[in-house]
């Protein structure tokens, strides 16, 4: 902020204080109308001071960050988290990761409204290839799976959930988190500590990943997850590729991102998505 602005703000606030003092004096003598009138003047001055301070430039904008960051960066955080995990995740999974990795609090209950906005944004632009947060798709009927989100720039087969997908996605996420942890231990130990607990939770269901006696070994987690993945991974890949192919023949462009219409699902008597 330039010096003259600082002086201005200081002056305005001093003037406002003057008015408030006089208002208090008037009020103490019972002249309430006059007191309030003076106080109004003071308010106006304070408002002007605030505006001047804001005009001051960049730092003020930066300082204001907190005010708007909430609505803004949630989307960015969700996209970053999904990008780093790399597989469909539940909203809760996203908020856990976001906290562990970025120290960001994401209220997973705001996801439905985010999804509405995402759809609106997706459905109107014409040519841009931007990235959107989109639901995962059920592998049989291709309706939107409520509990899992993905990114629109992932290949369709990776946004589809088949019979093995829940497990392979979990394993892939575990591998990714373990590698992430290993890397963070080298470059950002403080963040690594937060992420460690999450890796433990992910690895808990992977046989041979954890050895209760020793400190968590990310390599061991990765190896264990890979071992299991080598069994079901190929099956899952094949299933998803085939499903994606079916989906492309069956869905229009919009539906490959947002899912088959619910109506269709209801007609088929499948209540899972409703």
């Amino acid at each position: 902020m330039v010096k003259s602005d600082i002086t201005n703000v200081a002056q305005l606030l001093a003037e406002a204080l003057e008015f408030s003092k006089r208002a208090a004096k008037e009020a103490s003598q019972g002249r309430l109308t006059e007191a309030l009138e003076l106080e109004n003047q003071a308010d106006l001055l304070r408002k002007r001071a605030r505006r001047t301070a804001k005009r001051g430039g960049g730092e003020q904008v930066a300082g204001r960050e907190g005010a708007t960051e909430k609505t803004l960066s949630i989307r960015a955080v969700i996209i970053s988290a999904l990008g780093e995990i790399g597989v469909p995740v539940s909203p809760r999974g996203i908020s856990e990761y976001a906290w562990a990795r970025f120290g960001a609090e994401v209220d997973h209950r705001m996801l439905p409204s985010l999804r509405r906005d995402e759809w609106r944004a997706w459905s109107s632009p014409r040519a841009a290839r931007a990235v959107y947060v989109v639901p995962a798709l059920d592998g049989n009927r291709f309706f939107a799976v409520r509990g899992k989100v993905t990114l629109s720039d992932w290949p369709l087969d990776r946004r589809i959930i088949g019979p093995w997908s829940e497990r392979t996605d979990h394993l892939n996420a575990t591998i990714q988190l373990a590698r992430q942890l290993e890397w963070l231990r080298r470059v950002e130990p403080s963040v690594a500590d937060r992420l460690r607990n999450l890796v433990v939770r992910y690895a808990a269901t992977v046989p041979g990943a954890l050895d209760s006696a020793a400190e968590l070994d990310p390599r061991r987690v990765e190896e264990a997850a890979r071992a299991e993945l080598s069994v079901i991974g190929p099956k899952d890949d094949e299933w998803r590729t085939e499903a994606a192919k079916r989906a492309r023949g069956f869905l229009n462009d919009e539906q490959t991102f947002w899912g088959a219409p619910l109506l269709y699902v209801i007609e088929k008597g499948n209540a899972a998505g409703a």
Partner: protein
Amino acid sequence: MKVNISPDVEKRLAEIRADAAPRSPTVRVLAAYANHADCNLAALGFAARVDFDKLLEGTPYQVQFGQSPFAFSRGIAFERMVSARDYAETLNLLRTTMGFKIEDARTQDLRAKYQSQRLSMGLRANETREIIRQILLGRPTSYNLVGGAVLEANIGGISARFEADALAARFGGPIHAGEVKSFPVVDGRADPDKLSAALDQVSIYILLMRRLVDELGGDPDLVSRIALLITPTNVGLKPTMSQKDVGTRVARSERLLASVPDVTDIARSVPSSLTFNVVADQRADPGRRADELHKIADSIGTSYTPTCLSTCGNAFFCRERAFRSGSPCLTGPQSSRLLPGISSLNRAAALSGGAPPALNEAPVAPLLARAGRLYDAATKNSRFKSSSQKVAV
């Protein structure tokens, strides 16, 4: 000109616009729109006729697109010069470069005839139409050089009027649209961007004139695809006339007009609570105004690119959004192109430092890691580290 917006849509658009400064489509607004046709916020602003250049006035995001009064007066002076004495200079140029005859000198300056700019547009549009009709009928007495002609168009449901500097027609020949610009042609060269903007402008006039001729039952091909441009030559103000075939620009303008989304569709597609009333309220707290615009942007989506900085009044605002999310578009479309599957600049930086990539990042990650590794290796042994402070003693 028929415009089919229902009263409830008009009312909704008025609600959206609230007290924001309005603006109606002009050639310049249309050209700016073409630059960010993929931005929903820009489309909404266009449909609701909100002047985005003024929307954020009084906030730190205010953009200054002010025009220099000297630039303005140069334009006026030059225009006055070519239209003085019943367009003597212009007629002279038409004779020497376009083969106009001595008797092709029936001029009409509609701007001079109707002094008030704003109110007279409709009257001038009617008169333009009538003159074109006379020309089509082959009346030897019809005007053949018209200044300040007004052409009408329906743009996405909005009625708009465009003002052409000059229409000219040799007797029995095609009708031309011309534009007077004060940037110079020096040694046969003009600024390619300014020239391009001027020709795009003329191509819209040509397009609208073709439509008008068609409407009047004439052959649209009577309107020439050769644009006429009058500019100063070299370092003085001596006018010269350049001819350019703008056939492809006319076709592009046709695509542009066709691509403008219908205002009715836009009005219905945005959330019913959406309005610019707080954003535009200069008495409101600037922080609150920005928050409101963030909400609008979040709910309909934007598409920032650095070219917005020179064409859109919300550009600083959108740039800060891009900054806060670390979007690769912050550093230009080229860098987005080089970072497919990477969600943010932060992530690109992390990958360049060897962060393990997720599946979608796998193709680019090795390239970033390699670039980062080579950079770090080359600077490691150097006494010049990456940071500037080391040098600035």
